[in-house]
């Protein structure tokens, strides 16, 4: 397979600058660089490598190692090239007898305190210290027997001071007894599941400390001790990496020039020999990575510095949590069974596909054309999703297609579509670098969208202001070196009231941008809206009691948003997953139009998408009412495009949404489902109802990596491929189409797009129709481009050339569109929509006095099917219920107790943790573990416009408990029964 050719991937030493160009000469070569650029970077631009240890281009220069010294004509001494900025006409010499001598001396000092075990070191060949020793021509070391930090005897020994405490605790854990050898020796810290810290190899360059601060923004590392005794330390004395504040993003590991901080996989598998650029398959940030390979084994994932969403950073999931792809639970053979009480039978692909095709066609004959449908996956590629909805429309001949975006961002599609005319975020992630005020509403980016959180935190440290609107005190409210200007801790379910109140303040205090509104929006609608929001019943004072948000705080937040410069809103599922989810999205759009915060860098409305390809799966026509590109199936001119391309008539009526499919199944009119890469039994609300719907179907085809919970009700299992095993594209939250590249052959035999095609063809053969003949996903993208105007200019050649593009990409925008609505809204005039608050019918009362809200945490991802099968469980082995100390005390609940969580839909048990992160009256949990069954509790209430479930508000009661509920026990037993597999007969 052909690898993607990397653009310039060299370490330029210091970060890039922008600005007017300055010309200088380095070693006789003239080079022009932006002012503020370091001499080191200018030299690199000219193709000259200056030796360096403490500098790397992901962090600001520090100037501590003095290996990078140069001489400058007309200046005295030997300045460090990493910290000295260029000047016009400067003449620099990077090599001279004098600088060579200085560098050699520096290297000698470093090497004298470094074990000389290069031949057996796991970083051999991948160590900058080793490279630099070569580069400066070091041939002997004069300080051999001086003090050092290593333990030549190989025995652990106790160190001094703080280091002693840490060493003692590490020794206790590692079981290596210390003796009193070298007092400076500190044992290796193996506590993090993915990387090791070996202090004896540390050269104290601080690159790790600065990466943790500047790139990740966690400030978990410090240099402990002084002078020669100093070493890197995670957290307080006694902490190791696992117990410290470290979030395992790996930025420090990537920055470390030696083997001190190193991936365990390198020690195990050796250094990589080739790399392929691809895209993370977890969240909607869409980080790009270099998948570094050794043969066809993945050795490590390194965030790619040219990735336009992540700019060289990542979180623990994308960088480290890929082990699920080769986990023993992964199913590699197709399986079938006649009834869900039977064990699975492994069969050939042909058998499984003809079994599935017969069943689905039989159901249509018996129960009608509309009795079967599909669920597309927001984890699969655009090309795969496109094929699954095409399967419904062109082979099943109905519009029964939906996607898991139904349960997350469908209100974004509806709300932004109504207000602006397009169902997508307005900015790129780089935009945050120009933001002066950010509102985060209903999102928890440090956990859900970690790389975006790091980028935002960086901007906050530069002085931007933050407003957090969330029932919980999320980490963004206050953490190392950042603090929100305002936290509005609203009661779950009152988003619309709060957003409308913000607008009330802006309008009644005259803070709106009238010129923008007159020019860009429908003025009549604005006047209706202004009259509506000005009503005193929307004032913060009037809504305070209902929302729980202090009026003065809300007023101050509104003023800051309206007058603080470039203001951007970032939001998540805490906005959408409500009965008024779509209304809140419209309210957010109103705020941005009121203040003219749309159409330029630094502003906008930015939905943070949960899964990697939520944006793409919506773009690809997964919803039952619209064809690819968000065009309603009722429009004859749109149907005509696809009818011509596919050679079949298209149903003009909308199909069933996921909850409607389940309702229809219970009613007996929906009988067959092809579900790709989703686990609706665990992820969708009201588990009892989902289970009843699935149980009522006669053919459920699950296409997945694992026997997920939904598969307990399935009759056909088609093994899926991981993102490492196929080509395609994902579209991230900024509409960026990123390439996914195959780095190894599919373990199950086929890419997922091939499997959908095989299923379609198995049916088409029986129907006598023309079969599909795609041989590469690029052909599917060509079909998407030919049928969908916003993708008209996209093809794989363009993606190779540009790395990625943001749609719309067409004749008007041949290189894509980083910012939307720059000169006008897609729909013409922006629409202000009246947003009347309607309290949800899900209310707390005497039986269920608390409100449950749900979310996720950094180390786990959604239903956890992937992350639970990685060592990320070191951080989150189970779902916990967060409860306020008052509510816990009233109920006699102590930290770690088992509690019963009950709602009108059902009950489950889990363990409690007591925290004032949640307000009194609110409890919170995650839904990463199937045994918890958090969705047994959630109800069937949903957003009025889209049926997006109201996950974020459920009235519950919490009481002490001593173990799992009957449902949990019987479910566990049934799941075990259902997962039995009979191997194929030989």
């Amino acid at each position, binding site marked *: 397979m052909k690898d993607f050719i990397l653009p310039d991937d060299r370490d330029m030493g210091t970060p890039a600058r922008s600005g007017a160009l300055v010309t200088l000469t380095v070693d006789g070569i003239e080079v022009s660089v932006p002012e503020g650029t370091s001499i080191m970077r200018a030299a690199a631009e000219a193709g000259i490598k200056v030796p360096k240890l403490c500098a790397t281009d992901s962090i600001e220069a520090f100037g501590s190692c003095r290996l990078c010294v140069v001489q400058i004509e007309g200046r005295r001494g030997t300045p460090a090239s990493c910290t000295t900025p260029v000047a016009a006409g400067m003449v620099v010499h990077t090599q001279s007898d004098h600088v060579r001598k200085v560098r050699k001396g520096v290297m000698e000092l470093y090497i004298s305190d470094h074990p000389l075990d290069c031949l057996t070191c796991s970083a051999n060949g991948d160590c900058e210290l080793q490279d630099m020793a070569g580069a400066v021509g070091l041939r002997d070391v004069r300080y051999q027997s001086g003090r050092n930090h290593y333990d030549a005897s190989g025995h652990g020994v106790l160190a001094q001071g703080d280091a002693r405490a840490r060493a003692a605790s590490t020794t206790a854990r590692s079981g290596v007894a210390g003796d009193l050898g070298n007092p400076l020796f500190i044992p290796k810290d193996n506590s993090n599941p993915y990387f090791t810290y070996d202090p004896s190899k540390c050269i104290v360059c601080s690159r790790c400390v600065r990466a943790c601060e500047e790139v990740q923004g966690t400030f978990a590392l410090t240099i402990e001790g002084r002078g020669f005794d100093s070493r890197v330390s995670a957290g307080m004395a006694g902490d190791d990496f696992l117990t410290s504040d470290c979030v395992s993003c790996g930025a420090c590991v990537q920055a470390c020039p030696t083997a001190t901080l190193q991936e365990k996989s390198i020690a195990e598998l050796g250094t990589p020999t080739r790399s392929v650029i691809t895209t993370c398959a977890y969240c909607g940030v869409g980080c790009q990575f270099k998948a570094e390979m050794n043969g066809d084994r993945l050795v490590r994932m390194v965030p790619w510095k040219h990735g336009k969403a992540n700019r060289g950073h990542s979180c623990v999931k994308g960088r480290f949590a890929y082990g699920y792809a080769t986990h023993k639970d992964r199913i590699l053979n197709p399986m079938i069974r006649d009834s869900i009480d039977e064990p699975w039978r492994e069969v050939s692909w042909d058998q499984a596909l003809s079994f599935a095709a017969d069943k689905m066609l039989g159901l249509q004959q018996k129960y009608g054309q509309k009795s079967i449908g599909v669920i597309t996956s927001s984890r699969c590629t655009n090309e795969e999703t496109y094929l699954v909805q095409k399967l419904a429309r062109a082979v099943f001949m109905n519009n029964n297609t939906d996607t898991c975006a139904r349960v997350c961002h469908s209100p974004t599609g509806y709300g932004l579509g109504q207000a602006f005319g397009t169902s997508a975020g307005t900015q790129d992630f780089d935009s945050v670098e120009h933001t002066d005020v950010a509102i985060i509403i209903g999102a928890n980016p440090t956990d859900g969208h970690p790389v975006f959180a790091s980028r935002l935190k960086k901007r906050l440290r530069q002085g931007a202001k933050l407003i957090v609107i969330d029932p919980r005190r999320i980490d963004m409210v206050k953490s190392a070196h950042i603090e929100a200007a305002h936290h509005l801790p609203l009661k779950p379910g009152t988003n619309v009231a709060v957003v409308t109140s913000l607008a009330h303040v802006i309008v009644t205090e005259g803070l709106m941008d009238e010129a923008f509104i007159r020019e860009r929006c429908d003025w009549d609608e604005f006047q209706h809206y202004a009259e509506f929001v000005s009503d005193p019943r929307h004032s913060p004072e009037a809504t305070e009691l209902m929302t729980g948000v202090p009026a003065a705080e809300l007023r101050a937040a509104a003023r800051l948003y309206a007058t603080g410069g470039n203001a951007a809103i970032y939001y998540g599922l805490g906005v959408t997953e409500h009965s008024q989810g779509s209304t809140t999205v419209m309210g957010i759009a109103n705020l941005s139009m009121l203040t003219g915060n749309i159409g330029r860098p630094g502003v906008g409305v930015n939905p943070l998408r949960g899964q990697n390809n939520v944006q793409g799966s919506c773009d690809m026509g997964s919803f039952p009412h619209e064809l690819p590109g968000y065009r309603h199936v009722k429009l004859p001119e749109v149907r005509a495009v696809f009818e011509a391309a596919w050679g079949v008539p298209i149903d003009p009526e909308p199909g069933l949404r996921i909850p409607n499919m389940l309702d*229809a199944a219970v009613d007996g009119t929906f009988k067959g489902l092809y579900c790709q890469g989703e686990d609706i039994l665990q992820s969708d609300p009201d588990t009892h109802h989902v289970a009843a719907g699935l149980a009522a179907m006669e053919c459920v085809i699950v296409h997945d990596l694992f026997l997920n919970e939904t598969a307990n009700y399935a009759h056909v299992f088609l093994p899926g491929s991981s993102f490492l095993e196929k080509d395609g594209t994902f579209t991230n939250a900024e509409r960026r189409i990123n390439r996914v590249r195959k780095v190894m052959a599919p373990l199950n035999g086929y890419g997922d797009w091939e499997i959908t095609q095989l299923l379609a063809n198995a049916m088409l053969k029986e129907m006598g129709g023309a079969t599909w003949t795609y041989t590469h996903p690029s052909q599917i993208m060509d079909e998407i481009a030919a049928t969908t105007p916003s993708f008209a200019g996209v093809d794989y050649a363009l993606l190779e050339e540009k790395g990625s593009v943001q749609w719309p990409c067409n004749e008007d925008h041949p290189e894509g569109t980083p910012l939307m609505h720059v000169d006008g809204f897609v729909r013409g005039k922006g629409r202000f929509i009246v947003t009347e608050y309607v309290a949800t019918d899900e209310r707390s009362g005497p039986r269920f006095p608390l409100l449950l809200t749900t979310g996720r945490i950094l180390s786990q991802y959604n239903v956890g099917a992937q992350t639970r099968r990685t060592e990320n469980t070191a951080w989150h082995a189970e779902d916990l219920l967060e409860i306020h100390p008052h509510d816990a005390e009233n109920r006699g609940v102590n930290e770690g107790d088992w509690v019963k969580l009950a709602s009108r839909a059902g009950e489950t048990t889990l363990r409690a943790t007591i925290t004032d992160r949640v307000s009194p009256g609110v409890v919170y949990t995650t839904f990463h573990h199937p045994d918890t069954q958090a969705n047994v509790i959630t109800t069937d209430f949903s957003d009025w416009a889209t049926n997006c479930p109201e996950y974020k508000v459920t009235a519950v009661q919490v009481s002490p408990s001593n173990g799992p509920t009957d449902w949990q026990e019987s479910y566990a037993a049934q799941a075990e029964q259902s997962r039995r597999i009979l191997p194929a007969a030989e």
Partner: protein
Amino acid sequence: MSPEKMVHMANQIATFFKTQPGDNAPERVAGHLRDFWEPRMRDQLRRYVDEGGTGLDQIAIEAVKRI
């Protein structure tokens, strides 16, 4: 789907459009139902209205006559 759930969903839609300016709320509710409700859901709602439409918002009932 259960009648209670259907009534709840239809009333939610009616409640939204009732708050919008203009006097065409029933038509807009009908438009929403045509655009997003699958025909068998609309049939069920129509039958329910024929049988009296208990619990349905008046705007929703008006809307159903238009779908």
